[in-house]
């Protein structure tokens, strides 16, 4: 390209009046051809620009943000379950239901069970007779 043309373009460039395609021309001129020494300083400029446009990010993008949404649902489900649970617990234990038709039989059954319990209690207490002996001996010495 003609030198005078380049100089004109440069002047326009520094006024900020060049178009993108004119700037491309300048870039091509300064990065490929050997330039006269008085324009050499601009070569650094345009070389820098074209070099910088090749820099790229090295780190890959990791998308982990979408997990948050599901946690919100878990919280909501848990609170609903808690409220329902509390409601059920309050109304849960209702009046006892009769298991026997005839009260006579019910009385006898209850007696049977209570007898069984006291029988086991007495069996267990038999072992405690020895303790009485200890008590007696102790009382002999300590009055």
């Amino acid at each position, binding site marked *: 390209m003609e030198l005078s043309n380049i100089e004109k373009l440069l002047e326009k460039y520094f006024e*900020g009046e060049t178009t993108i395609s004119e700037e491309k021309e300048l870039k091509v001129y300064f990065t490929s051809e050997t330039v006269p020494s008085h324009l*050499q300083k601009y070569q650094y400029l345009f070389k820098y620009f074209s*070099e910088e446009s090749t820099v790229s990010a090295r780190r890959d*993008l990791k998308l982990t943000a979408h997990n948050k949404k599901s946690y919100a649902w878990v919280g909501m489900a848990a609170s609903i379950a808690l409220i329902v649970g509390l409601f059920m617990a309050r109304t849960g234990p209702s009046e006892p239901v009769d298991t026997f038709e005839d009260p006579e039989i019910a009385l006898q059954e209850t007696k049977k069970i209570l007898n069984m319990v006291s029988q086991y209690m007495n069996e267990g207490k038999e072992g405690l007779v020895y303790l009485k002996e200890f008590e007696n001996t102790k009382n002999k010495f300590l009055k």
Partner: protein
Amino acid sequence: MKERAFITLTNTFKDKLFRLSKRLLVSSEEAEDATQEVLLKLWKNKSKIGTYKNVEAFAMTMTKNYCYDKLKSKQTGNLKIVHNNYEDGQASLQRQVEAKDSLDWVGKIMESLPEQQRMIIQLRDIEQYNNAEIAEMLEMNETAVRVALSRGRKVIREELLKKHNYGVV
């Protein structure tokens, strides 16, 4: 929108987000964080993606705002962090080193520009967006974009000239 579709959509402009945040935050690590953060935010609001006029421009605006917040919190925290990106440069030829050095100077000059000019030059000269797109991304009007662009470019020219003539910036 499915994960795969989202990733293919964002991959078309992910690097641009990274470069913009790197331009503002300087450190590569922080720029990676910023890119990740912006894309995750976009993913969380994926149901709204269809309503955006231009997802890419929207993501760029998000990146700009995110980086501004980062810079602001750093300033208020009275914390001055000097960023260095360590690289193992292959010092093979003297000239190669010199050329690399001169390219780094351009980067350093750009770092000294105000954030707005820095972003505009990044978007225009490196990403090749037109002024209307830049105005939309940065929430400015087009004339202001053109003025800031010209101002930024002229500063770079002056600094380069100084460096070229005296070897100091």
